[in-house]
């Protein structure tokens, strides 16, 4: 019977079926139909890619040599998934809310979106997974070889390399076709998931069928099978405790960390609720798949049934040797399914990582970041992902060719597990410990990976050029405690456990130490909050660490909105009120208070959203939130600048208003003065004109009268001249053309001259002086100074409204200045007029018009010229003018 040909036909039919299923599932999903595609059962079945060909065939081989030890590989995942509420739920929720695309993405995203970390994890995943892919290719070729051996009519063994090549090529086509349909890496691959769900069913049915055949068909029932086990070489439970516990732990870690497991469990997850079903259905699946492993191994080992030489292929050879070709083909399809589903998902997971974290950054860097335009990038991503799949699968094929298949490859399963288990500290630490940071993650991963490579991966090839025999036996540089399989003189340990223990110990140690010593960036801190508090609401409230962790986030957020000092002050006050030191617990009261403070800055809605963001952890990304906070801070800074500007403008406007008022009053004064001066000019002019007209007719006028008229004309003309002189004087002074005639003189003499000039008219105006103080020599323009004195004294005489007017002239020296005060006992100048008295043409209280209102203006100009000043002292009783003059100062002008 042409078994090999039948196998080829069935195999091709099966592959065609897979393509059809994938195609239909993809099309249905794209049409938005088919809710069954995302059912929890499909999800559970897709998790079964955990069971690869290594477990399908290898478990029996494992059991044949070490008894029940193989169970640990399934017990670990069982324990993880029945405790899903603890870890997996959080992992899946974090993955979904952050749109995580791979395990590298998750770790890098958690630690501040560090691309370095992503590249690192990607490379580790590729190194750890490629041999595993090679292992799957090996299992397929070996199983085909087993068929060829049993096929008497066949023309011998087909070339293994060629089989492996065509299998690889088929896998590449399938993976590219259904794995890179969607551009979005975290979009569901319905076709692929459906296909692997179908394969999961096939491999379970195949293994169960072979098991049932072995137990009931060959051994003759349960009792006789148990009896056979008791008689076999593995009749005794001889598992070492360390290995039993260690392997369970290892497989539990690998279950979470394997890139392909992460892909189906987190990335392809449609709904966290599916975990509820998987929590019991997947352990059931694992239990069923391992149920018949020991019986198959024991019956295969029994020479009566001729299971063959290789225990790894008992699943296949047992039906073959006993003439059940149909069952053998089913078993082959089961193994084929295990191998292909693992390779497909692993290739998708790895290609996503490689294209996202290695190819894309390099491409963007190479194009100078200028190509981040729409359309272009999308195509590049797809091409990168397809090429990555091709390269990864080709690497697996190459690895298979190079290693030539054999024991080294068979051992790779556990070696690969230890490699990916290195992600565990960073992953779990990142989900549950706020303090874990980027430096710690890099240090831990590097240490763990280096030790894994040194202690397990490189020695697994045996003595080679990379790791010569001398190093394995005597250690690196002949240092005994650096022996790769007896590190720190831990001799006698089994290599896998030895490497597992040391690599993970150093991984955790470095992760913790560097995390504690390092300081995270703001993005890291926000991300850590986002990840650790992903489930805040569903956990017990008042959890101490969780609470403080939240406060830290709240503080960080508030700082971006309120400014660091204000935010810190608010938090410290709240902490003191609660009796703490730095961070308050996020009690409802405190949250309410903080929300109110925040809403004062950003509005109630935003403040509420910000706080609930931290307290609940919703779908908005941290970067979005930081952007909002930054914007708010910018707006606040801008508006505070606006406030300053507004204040400035208000000040200027006030000054302008004051100046305007003054100008208006001046204008009124000027109008009044102009009418006054025209009147004053007109009066003398009128009389001059009238008298000169009379004088023109000399006949009627007596000489007396003529003389009188002429003197009137003369006086009026003099008055006019004086008025014009004063105007001229002021104009000269103001335009800085005045000439200063310096001469020496004594103050007392100057005052005498002034007093005599004014008081000579004599009308009971009393002037008090203190001659002792007046003995001061001056070097200045004496005539001008006397002019000022005369003006002030005559003003006092004219305007003092006391019954017995008095003027006191006080002389004092002050800070190198001569100060002469002229104070009378009148009622002083009203406040509103004080700033006008020095203006030209101003006369206070229209009533007692005297001069032209130019005297004080002229006097002040003179004093400015002489380097001194003339001010009105507003705080004194009566009218007080103070003349100040520098005693030895240079004279301006």
């Amino acid at each position: 019977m042409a078994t090999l040909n039948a196998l080829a036909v069935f195999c091709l039919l099966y592959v065609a079926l897979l393509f059809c299923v994938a195609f239909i599932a993809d099309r249905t999903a794209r049409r938005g139909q088919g809710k069954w595609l995302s059912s929890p059962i499909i999800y559970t079945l897709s998790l079964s890619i955990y069971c690869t060909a290594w477990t399908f065939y290898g478990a029996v081989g494992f059991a044949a040599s070490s008894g029940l030890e193989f169970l640990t590989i399934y017990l670990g995942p069982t324990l993880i998934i029945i405790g899903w509420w603890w870890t997996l739920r959080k992992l899946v929720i974090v993955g979904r809310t952050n749109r995580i695309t791979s395990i590298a993405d998750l770790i890098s995203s958690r630690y501040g979106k560090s691309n370095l970390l992503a590249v690192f994890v990607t490379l580790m995943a590729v190194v750890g997974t490629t041999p595993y892919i090679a292992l799957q290719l090996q299992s397929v070729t070996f199983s085909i070889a087993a068929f060829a051996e049993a096929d008497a009519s066949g023309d011998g063994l087909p070339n293994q390399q060629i089989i492996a090549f065509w299998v690889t090529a088929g896998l590449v086509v399938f993976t590219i076709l259904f794995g890179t349909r969607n551009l979005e890496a975290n979009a569901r691959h319905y076709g692929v998931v459906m296909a692997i769900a179908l394969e999961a069913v096939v491999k379970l049915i195949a293994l169960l069928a072979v098991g049932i055949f072995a137990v009931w068909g060959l051994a003759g029932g349960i009792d006789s099978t148990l009896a056979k086990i008791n008689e076999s070489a593995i009749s005794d439970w001889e598992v070492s405790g360390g290995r039993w516990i260690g392997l369970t732990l290892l497989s539990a870690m690998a279950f979470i960390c394997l890139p392909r497991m992460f892909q189906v469990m987190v990335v392809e997850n449609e709904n966290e609720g599916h975990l509820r079903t998987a929590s019991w259905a997947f352990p059931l699946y694992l239990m069923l798949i391992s149920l018949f492993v020991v019986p198959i191994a024991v019956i295969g080992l029994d020479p009566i049934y001729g299971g063959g030489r290789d225990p790894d292929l008992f699943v296949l050879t047992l039906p073959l040797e006993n003439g059940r070709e149909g069952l053998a083909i089913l078993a082959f399809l089961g193994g084929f399914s295990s191998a292909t589903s693992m390779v497909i998902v692993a290739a998708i997971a790895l290609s996503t990582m490689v294209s996202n974290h290695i190819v894309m950054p390099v491409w963007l860097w190479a194009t100078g970041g200028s190509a981040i335009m729409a359309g272009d990038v999308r195509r590049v991503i797809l091409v990168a992902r397809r090429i990555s799949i091709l390269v990864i699968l080709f690497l697996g094929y190459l690895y298979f060719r190079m290693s030539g298949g054999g024991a080294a490859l068979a051992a790779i399963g556990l070696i690969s597990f230890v490699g990916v288990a290195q992600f565990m500290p960073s992953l779990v630490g990142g989900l549950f410990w706020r303090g874990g940071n980027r430096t710690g993650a890099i240090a831990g991963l590097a240490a763990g990976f280096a030790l894994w490579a040194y202690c397990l991966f490189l020695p697994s090839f045996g003595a080679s050029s990379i790791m010569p025999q001398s190093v394995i036996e005597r250690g690196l540089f002949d240092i005994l405690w650096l022996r790769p399989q007896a590190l720190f003189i831990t001799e006698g340990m089994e290599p896998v456990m030895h490497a597992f223990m040391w690599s993970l110990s150093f991984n955790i140690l470095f992760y913790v130490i560097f995390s504690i010593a390092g300081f995270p960036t703001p993005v890291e801190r926000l991300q850590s909050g986002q990840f650790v508090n992903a489930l805040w609401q569903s956990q017990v409230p008042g959890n101490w660490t969780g609470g403080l962790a939240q406060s830290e986030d709240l503080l960080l957020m508030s700082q971006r909105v309120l400014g660091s000092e204000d935010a810190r002050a608010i938090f410290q006050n709240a902490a003191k009120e609660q009796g703490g030191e730095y961070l308050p617990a996020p009690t409802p009261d405190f949250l309410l208070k903080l929300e109110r403070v925040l809403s004062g800055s950003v509005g109630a809605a935003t403040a509420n959203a910000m706080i609930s963001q931290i307290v609940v952890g919703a779908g908005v990304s941290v970067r979005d939130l930081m952007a909002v906070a930054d914007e708010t801070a910018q707006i606040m800074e801008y508006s505070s600048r606006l406030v300053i500007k507004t204040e400035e403008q208000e000040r200027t406007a006030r000054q302008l208003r004051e100046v305007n008022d003054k100008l208006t009053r001046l204008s009124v004064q000027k109008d009044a003065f102009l009418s006054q001066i025209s009147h004053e000019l007109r009066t003398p002019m009128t009389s001059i004109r009238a008298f000169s007209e009379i004088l023109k007719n000399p006949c009627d006028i007596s000489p007396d009268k003529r003389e009188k008229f002429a003197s009137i004309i003369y006086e009026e003309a003099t008055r006019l001249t004086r008025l014009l002189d004063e105007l001229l004087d002021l104009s000269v002074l103001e335009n800085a053309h005045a000439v200063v005639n310096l001469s020496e003189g004594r103050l007392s003499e100057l005052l005498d001259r002034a007093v005599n000039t004014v008081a000579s008219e004599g009308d009971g105006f009393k002037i008090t002086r203190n001659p002792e103080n007046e003995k001061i020599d001056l070097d200045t323009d004496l005539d001008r100074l006397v002019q000022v004195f005369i003006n002030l004294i005559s003003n006092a005489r004219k305007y003092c409204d006391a019954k017995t007017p008095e003027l006191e002239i006080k002389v004092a020296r002050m800070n190198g200045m001569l100060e002469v005060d002229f104070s009378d006992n009148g009622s002083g100048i009203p406040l509103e007029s004080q700033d006008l008295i020095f203006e030209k043409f101003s006369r206070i209280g229209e009533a007692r018009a005297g001069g032209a209102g130019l005297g004080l203006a002229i006097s002040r100009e003179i004093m400015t010229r002489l380097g001194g000043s003339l001010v009105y002292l507003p705080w004194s009783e009566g009218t007080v003018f103070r003349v100040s003059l520098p005693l030895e100062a240079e004279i301006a002008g």
Partner: protein
Amino acid sequence: MSDKEDNSISDRRAYRRRRMADASRLMPLFGAALFGMPLLWGGETVPTTKVMVYVFAVWIALVVLSGLISRSLPDPSEERQRNQFRL
């Protein structure tokens, strides 16, 4: 958050759910302890069949228990949506 505690006291079903979540958290520890038991079995030699029957019995028990607990746990996706509208 304090009102959540109040709710859970007044709402017996929510309280039951929370205790079920506790039970779910204990499941891996419970399972690990049970799976580790054969290591403590004394005697000269322990037959493989005995351990095998024990391990599979425990396994089935865990499947059933996990199914029961998961059924009484809230659907995480629905729960998350509810929580989002809470604050």
